[in-house]
């Protein structure tokens, strides 16, 4: 089967003991079989499926965007757009010392969105977060958009090239959480263009030539945005 072709669960993707099944692939005797809907990727002997859909599975080290959904006695419960909520403890919440019994809502409260980092995931998917690190902070303005978590690598692009292109073209600030939650801030027209661009990447990332298409799209749309101002 050809590299980068779309495969569905149960489809045989390779045959023989020379190949090794990795993500999204299992061995059944001589055959390697897909267990995910996705794009087939063969790298030497390694066979994997790049998924086209799926929920976020928390991973240690991921920088994500979460929402505070509860304030507990010793920390905060955070919705991280997955099947599991996460905990941010008092000692990981701030560089300053938070005394026991302090009013935690002074730091983060219900409904706050935060850029945070996963520091631990147990076998039961209990997730611990930290706010200590560069760029980790509370988000005070802007729009939250949920995208398919498996499209995050394409939205970010190689060395952040795709997201930089969106930022440059629209003038928006953009933070892409590994959990598929994106934060955007800009002027309404530009913000909307940034959202449309994210949706375009999400919907077309499986079709080759994505970067060029997105660049052409942004060039054209940014031109449209500027027109009314020139007319004035």
């Amino acid at each position, binding site marked *: 089967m050809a590299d980068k072709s779309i495969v569905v669960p*149960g489809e045989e993707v390779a045959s023989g003991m020379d190949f090794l099944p990795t993500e999204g692939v299992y061995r059944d005797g001589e055959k390697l079989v897909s267990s995910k809907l996705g794009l087939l990727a063969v790298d030497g002997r390694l066979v994997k499926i790049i998924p086209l859909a799926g929920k976020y599975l928390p991973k240690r080290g991921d920088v994500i965007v979460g*929402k505070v959904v509860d304030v507990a006695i010793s920390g905060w419960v955070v919705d991280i757009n997955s*099947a599991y909520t996460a905990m941010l403890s008092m000692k990981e919440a701030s560089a300053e010392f938070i005394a026991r019994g302090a009013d935690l809502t002074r730091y983060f409260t219900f409904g706050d969105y935060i850029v945070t980092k996963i520091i631990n995931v147990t076998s039961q998917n209990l997730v611990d977060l930290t706010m200590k690190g560069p760029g980790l902070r509370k988000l005070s303005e802007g*729009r939250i958009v949920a995208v398919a978590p498996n499209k995050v690598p394409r939205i970010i692009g190689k060395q952040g090239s795709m997201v930089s292109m969106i930022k440059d073209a629209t003038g928006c600030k953009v933070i892409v959480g590994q959990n598929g939650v994106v934060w955007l801030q800009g002027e309404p027209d530009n913000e909307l263009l940034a959202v449309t661009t994210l949706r375009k990447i999400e919907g077309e990332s499986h079709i080759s030539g994505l970067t060029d298409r997105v660049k052409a799209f942004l060039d054209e749309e940014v031109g449209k945005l500027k027109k009314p101002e020139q007319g004035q």
Partner: protein
Amino acid sequence: MGYDKRFDGRRPDELRPVAAKAGIIKRADGSAMFRIGNTVAYAAVYGPRDLFPRFLKDPQRGILRCRYNMMPFSGAGERVKPGGSRRSKEISMVTEKALLPVLNLEDFPNAVVDVFIELPQTDAGTRCAGICAAAIALADAGVSMKDLVSSVSAGKVGEMVAVDLSYAEESYKDGDVADIPVAFIPRTGQVTLLQMDGMIDKDGLKKALEMARAACLQIYEVQRRALKEKFAVPVAVKGNGSTV
């Protein structure tokens, strides 16, 4: 004279026209439509997501929860009262059992995958259509699974062994009728759903199962194509706003 020509002119091993489409409900994590003859099933998958009530949680793996439901106006004859019945409860349960063997839910302990099957229009074979739609929707949701599941009914009308019985055939009066809804894991040929009502001899049963197996491979092709076709073009994704 016995039943030697089907009411709708099909060959004994011939399915009603089959069609499928993946990704019909944007708010769902995965979704599909499956149509066989005049029976139409929609399925939506949500999850893996947090599970309530807590006592249902399994710390070893995620659980699967299915709900089969006929829309009130979907049936021939009188309105179907909403709110579920003993029949819909049982079908929900056997649907769960039909799908579970292919699912890999070990990565999602304590979580649930919800599958909602709704029938806007029914003829014969609703539970099988629901299972076919659900299997596409689960794959569309990105759930890890060893294979899809394909399902059809087989059986015997008079002396004829046939697949995908119609309503008219199910209610054939001039001889014995057996209706056997089955589901197969297409790759391995293992059976994950088997029910039967009516009367059939052992040889007839074996022949019916073989015929259902062959028919399910045709259905599998339709399911597979539905998933691939979704990605043949740019995919419509959720709206402009946030969904968090």
